[in-house]
């Protein structure tokens, strides 16, 4: 009993529990439709690569996961959200494909510049956008929502401009690597894992995580305590832009083209949702990176589950919303307090009966 309490008391318990609950729906569905109970969880090797729904969740959830890393830091440090990440993704993808294909070319089979230039270009573009947002928020004290609204609306248009209003196709095997396979693993999974590892180690081994939380809780007090609050906030937005650049690269490599109008569409919302599903407060301060990452994969798990259940893609958002409401409710403090009260009441009754 005590052990159970210890586990349920962990901050990550609820996010993980919710994700498992979503997946459990599939077991019920598979059993009721007469399939093998763990049909959803089966992972096989086909064509020399891993194949299965769990792999799909990890693979397709990569972009949102990468975005969620940056978003968590931004939310924590500035108590605001970066709503430009989806558009920045698209801009980074457009810039990358424009470099690789050459300006004004709509389809290229050969790269115009070495692959690394395109990759660095995408990352650099992400960083520039991140720095722009960071500058506005950290040094000019513009509200995060307003500051990032600029690139939210402008970045896609800039991307279209870079691509001369075309969908640029880069049909080159080396470029398709980022959305393809590294050995038997889908590359996006590896990229997401590397991003998580780097940021995770950085936060664990240095005091950066603590600084970010401290700035998020009280910016002025942190400055008085000797922290350069503005610089830390700037850094968080920079990292968020960088994450968007990487996510954009993965997304465009997946479809080997830069579809400015559709890449990263509504991803900013998923990224923010991931942070919230991970049990983080959008009011800034304390944060839990692992929670956000679990949140991101939960969102993808919901989508894939809905596909598996045969829900039409047009209606899926409705069911997604219902599930999200449930998850958020379970994690809401008043609900937690209510559960606690109920438990206490039951314990009291038990105790009363014994006496």
């Amino acid at each position, binding site marked *: 009993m005590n052990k159970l309490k210890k586990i349920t008391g962990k901050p990550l318990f609820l996010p993980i529990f919710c994700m498992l609950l979503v997946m459990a729906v599939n077991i019920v569905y598979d059993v009721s439709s007469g399939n093998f109970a763990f049909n959803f969880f089966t992972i096989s090797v086909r064509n020399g690569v891993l*194949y299965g729904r769990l792999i799909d969740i990890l693979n397709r959830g990569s972009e949102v996961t990468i975005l969620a890393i940056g978003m968590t830091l931004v939310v924590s440090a500035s108590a605001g959200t970066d709503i430009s990440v989806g558009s920045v993704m698209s801009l980074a993808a457009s810039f990358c494909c424009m470099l690789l294909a050459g300006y004004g070319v709509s389809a290229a089979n050969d790269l115009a510049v070495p692959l690394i230039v395109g990759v660095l270009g995408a990352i650099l573009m992400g960083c520039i956008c991140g720095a722009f947002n960071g500058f506005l928020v950290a040094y000019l004290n513009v509200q995060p929502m307003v500051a990032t609204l600029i690139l939210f609306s402008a970045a896609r248009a800039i991307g279209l401009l870079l691509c001369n209003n075309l969908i640029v196709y880069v049909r080159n095997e080396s470029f398709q690597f980022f959305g393809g396979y590294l050995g038997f693993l889908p590359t996006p999974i590896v990229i997401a894992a590397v991003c998580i590892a780097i940021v995770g180690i950085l936060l664990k081994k240095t005091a950066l995580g603590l600084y970010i939380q401290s700035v998020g809780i009280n910016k002025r007090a942190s400055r008085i305590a000797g922290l350069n609050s503005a610089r830390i906030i700037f850094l968080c937005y920079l990292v968020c832009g960088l994450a968007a650049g990487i996510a954009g690269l993965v997304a465009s490599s997946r479809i080997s083209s830069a*579809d400015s109008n559709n890449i990263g569409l509504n991803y900013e919302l998923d990224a923010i949702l991931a942070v919230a599903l991970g049990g983080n407060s959008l009011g800034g301060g304390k944060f839990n990176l692992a929670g956000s990452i679990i949140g991101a994969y939960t969102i993808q798990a919901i989508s894939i589950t809905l596909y598996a259940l045969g829900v039409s893609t047009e209606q899926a958002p409705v069911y997604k919303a219902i599930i999200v409401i449930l998850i958020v409710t379970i994690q809401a403090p008043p609900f937690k307090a209510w559960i606690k009260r109920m438990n206490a009441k039951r314990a009291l009754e038990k105790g009363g009966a014994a006496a």
Partner: protein
Amino acid sequence: MGPMPRMDRKKMGWLLLALLLLLTGCGKREEPVTGGHAPYVEDAATGKGEYIVVGFSQIGSESDWRIGSTESFRSTFTAENGYYLIYDDAQQKQENQLKAVRNFILQKVDYIIVDPIVETGWDAVLKEAKDAGIPVILADRSVKVEDEELYTCWVGSSFEQEGRSAGEWLREYLKKQGREDEEIRIVTLQGTLGSTAQIGRTEGFGKVLEQEKNWVMLDQQSGDFTQAKGQEVMEEFLKNYDRIDVVVCENDNMAFGAIEAIKKADKTCGPDGEIIILSFDAGRAALETLLDKDINAVFECNPKLGPLVSEIIRKLERGESVEKIQYVEEVYFDSTMDLEQIIEERTY
């Protein structure tokens, strides 16, 4: 308010600089779009009698198809052909289109061509054109107005016919392979639900489907006309259904996504593969994929409306009457054709 603190003034300077940069950036962007037709206006007003002056309001330049369409009008309505074209790009906004049409009326053009962004809200401006005695020809998309007489005619694609040709092509193809009595399992990647192209293509294919008793439509899901979504939905189809014989993709982009998904699932597609892929639109990229033997057949959605519109204008000039609804001729391509030649000539 006291004097600004030093620091804030510095910040203000930066902000102003940033704003300035942004504004100049915007200015540059607008230039090629709106600056272009100022000189044309004067020419039209002074009236070059021997030319037929045509005002064309295009939606924008969001896709290869649209660019192909613009190109078709531009290359048809040239001085050599006896036309004077005033082109206006509406940048995806109806208000720009309304403005453009009013300008055309003021400039006393001979004909107005509109590719309307949305169907509604056209009554007033079309009435103005009618009162001015200028015939309006609608291209590609259509309008909903109370009085159909407000416009002369509509020219565009018959999406339903495209869907039906796809079904008929499939019937012939299966017959050739001796599979006409087999059970054929089909899935459809639909376009954005409710769009004209989606409704027409689904209905057209559905008509053939009804006649064929041994065809089974396993599932129909929307892939939103995008490659990424098409791929995601196709991945799921492949997991849900052990055997799929035919994938109908309601545009090229979703077909590319479906092909990726099929290859990932260790299956094959195209004329030499196990899954038959049909696609619509037939852009250059799709024809190249057809050449690579990944797609079986593509059904054209012809953006070349220019010549047909020109023909209509010539008829009207001679005082003849024209049909209210006119479909542009559309073809299909499959791997038996000389694709390299076709791709060479393809501009979009």
